[in-house]
C-alpha cells in the first residue's frame, strides 16, 4: 500500500503556508508516508519552532476532550501546519456492552473540529459496567466477540462518517475460550467492516514473545494490504512464573532492534506507510524523539524510490 507523499514534501514544509492556515480541508487526505511522533505538551513550542521536521503528529483523543484551554490552543496551531492522526484509547470496541454513545458523540465533535487524516482505536476493551479501567484489556477471539467487534466498528464508522484504523494489541494472557488466532480474527474484522489496520509492530513482537509465537509469521498472516499507519514503540522486560520473558508494552524506552528489523520486513512487503514513534513515559526532549523518528523516516525514504527530494 502506497500513500501519496507529495502532500508532506511541498506545502507542509513551508512555514508561511502554516502561518496562513493554507492547509485547508481540501488538502487533507491520507497521512503522508513519513515518520511522526506522539504529540506531548512539553514539546508544543519546539514543534511550532521547527515546522516540517516531522511528517505528522498523533494525539490521544481523550486528552483533547476538555471544553477549552491550552490543549486546544496548541493543537489548533500545530494542526494548522501538520498532518494529524487522532488515536482513541477509550472507546472500548472489544467490550461486551454497547458502545458509550456520549463518548462516540465527543469523538465526532473532536474529529469535526480537527479533521485529522486518520482516526484509530484498539482491538481491546477498557470499560465495563460504566467503570473506565484505564488500560487496553484483552478479549477472547471467538465468534461472539468477532460479531460484537464488527458491530461496534460498523457503528463507529457510521457515526464518524469515515473509515477507522484498528490497532492490534499487546497482550499478556490468552483465553481458553478463543477459537481463532489473533491474525485470523483481525483479518475477518477487516474483511467484514472494511476498516483499516493500524499495525503496531511493537505490539506484534510483544504478543508473539509473550505467547511463544513467531512474530514474522504473525505479521505475514495479517491483512497487511489494509495497513494505514504503523506504530513503533519500546517495551520493558519482565518474567512470567516459569521465568520466560514477559514483555510489557511500556512506551517508555526507544524502539528495540528486533522491532526495527520486523518493521523493515513489513515495509519491504507493503511499501512506505505513515509511521509513528509512540512514547508516553520517560518522554525525552523533542530533538531526541525527532531523531528516533528520523530513523524510521530514513527507512521510509529507502523504500520510496520516487521520493528523492524528501530524502535529500
Amino acid at each position, binding site marked *: 500500500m502506497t500513500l501519496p507523499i507529495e502532500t508532506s514534501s511541498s506545502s507542509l514544509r513551508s512555514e508561511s503556508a502554516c502561518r496562513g492556515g493554507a492547509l485547508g480541508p481540501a488538502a487533507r487526505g491520507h497521512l503522508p508516508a513519513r515518520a511522526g511522533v506522539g504529540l506531548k505538551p512539553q514539546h508544543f513550542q519546539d514543534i511550532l519552532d521547527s515546522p516540517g521536521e516531522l511528517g505528522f503528529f498523533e494525539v490521544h483523543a481523550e*486528552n483533547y476532550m476538555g471544553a*477549552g484551554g491550552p490543549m486546544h490552543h496548541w493543537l489548533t496551531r500545530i494542526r494548522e501546519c501538520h498532518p494529524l492522526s487522532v488515536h482513541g484509547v477509550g472507546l472500548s470496541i472489544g467490550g461486551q456492552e454497547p458502545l458509550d454513545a456520549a463518548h462516540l458523540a465527543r469523538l465526532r465533535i473532536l474529529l469535526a473540529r480537527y479533521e485529522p487524516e486518520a482516526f484509530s482505536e484498539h482491538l481491546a476493551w477498557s470499560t465495563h459496567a460504566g467503570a473506565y*479501567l484505564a*488500560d487496553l*484489556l484483552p478479549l477472547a477471539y471467538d465468534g461472539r466477540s468477532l460479531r460484537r467487534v464488527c458491530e461496534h466498528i460498523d457503528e463507529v464508522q457510521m457515526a464518524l462518517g469515515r473509515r477507522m484504523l484498528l490497532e492490534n494489541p499487546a497482550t499478556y494472557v*490468552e483465553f*481458553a475460550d478463543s477459537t481463532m488466532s489473533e491474525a485470523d480474527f483481525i483479518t475477518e474484522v477487516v474483511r467484514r467492516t472494511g476498516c483499516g489496520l493500524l499495525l503496531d509492530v511493537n505490539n506484534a513482537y510483544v504478543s508473539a514473545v509473550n*505467547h511463544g509465537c513467531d512474530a514474522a509469521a504473525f505479521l505475514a498472516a495479517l491483512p497487511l494490504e489494509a495497513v494505514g499507519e504503523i506504530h513503533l514503540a519500546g517495551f520493558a522486560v519482565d518474567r*512470567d*512464573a516459569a521465568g520466560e520473558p514477559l514483555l510489557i508494552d511500556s512506551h517508555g524506552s526507544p524502539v528495540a532492534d528486533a522491532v526495527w528489523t520486523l518493521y523493515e520486513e513489513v515495509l519491504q512487503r507493503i511499501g512506505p506507510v505513515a509511521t509513528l514513534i509512540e512514547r508516553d513515559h520517560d518522554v525525552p526532549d523533542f530533538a531526541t524523539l525527532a531523531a528516533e523518528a528520523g530513523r524510521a523516516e530514513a527507512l521510509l525514504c529507502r523504500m520510496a524510490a520516487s521520493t528523492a527530494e524528501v530524502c535529500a
Partner: protein
Amino acid sequence: MTAHAAFAAALLDPDVAVPAGLTAWNGVDPMRRFAVYRNNVTTALTGVLADSFPVTQQLVGEDFFCAMARVFLRAHPPRSPLLHEYGHDFPAFVAQFEPARQVPYLADMARLEWLRLASLHAADAPVLAADDIAPLLADPAALPGLRLALHPAAAVLQSAHAVVSLWGAHHGVGALAEVDPYAAESALVLRPMLEVLVLRLPPGGGIFAAALAAETTLGEAAAAASADPSFDLAENLALLIRHGALGALRSSARN
C-alpha cells in the same frame, strides 16, 4: 457474571481471584501475567491522581498519597475515559478519609488543585473588560441589580485554612515555615491566558466572588460580603475585573 465483569472485578481488587479461563502458551499459572493488567490499571490511575493533586501529595508524602489513591480508585473507578475529570470526587473522599485527618487542610488543598485542573480545561470565553463596565458605572442606581458572572475558567474557594499561602509555598512563593495553616484564606483560581493562576482574595472577597458565582446580583453579593467588616466592594470588583475573572455581560445581564 460475564467474562469482562469477572476480569474487571479482579483488576480492581487484588483479593479477588484471577478470572477463570486465562491461559499461557507454556501452561504456567497466569497470575503473574494477569498482574501486569492489575499493575497497569493501578499505576495509570494513581498516576492521574498524583499529577492532578501534586501539592496534596507533597503534604502527605508519596507513600501515603498512593495508598490513599488506591483506596479511592477501588471505591470510585473512573466513570468516563476523560481522565482529566477523574479528580472531581477526590477532594470529598480526602475530607472523609480517616487517616488523613492529621492534616486538616489536606481536603481544601485537594479542592484547590481540583479547581486549578477544572480551570485549565474550562471553556474559552470572553472576559468582562474594564471598558465594558465603564458605562455601567455611569448609572449607579442600576448597579445593585446587575448580575455579573464568573468567567467559566474562574472559580473561588473559601477555606478555613491558608490554602493559597500553602500552595504558593510549594511553588516557590514565600517560606512554608512562615505560613500559619490555620489562618482562613479564600482563593481565586483563574486562567487569564494559557496558564492557571491562584490569587488570595482580600477580606470578604471569597464570600463576594462565591455569591457572584452563584449568580446573585451585585447588591446581594456586596451585602453578603459586608459580613466581613473590612470588605471593600471597589477593591474586590477592581481585582476581579483586572484579572479577567468575570465573564462578558450577557444582554440580559442589565436590568
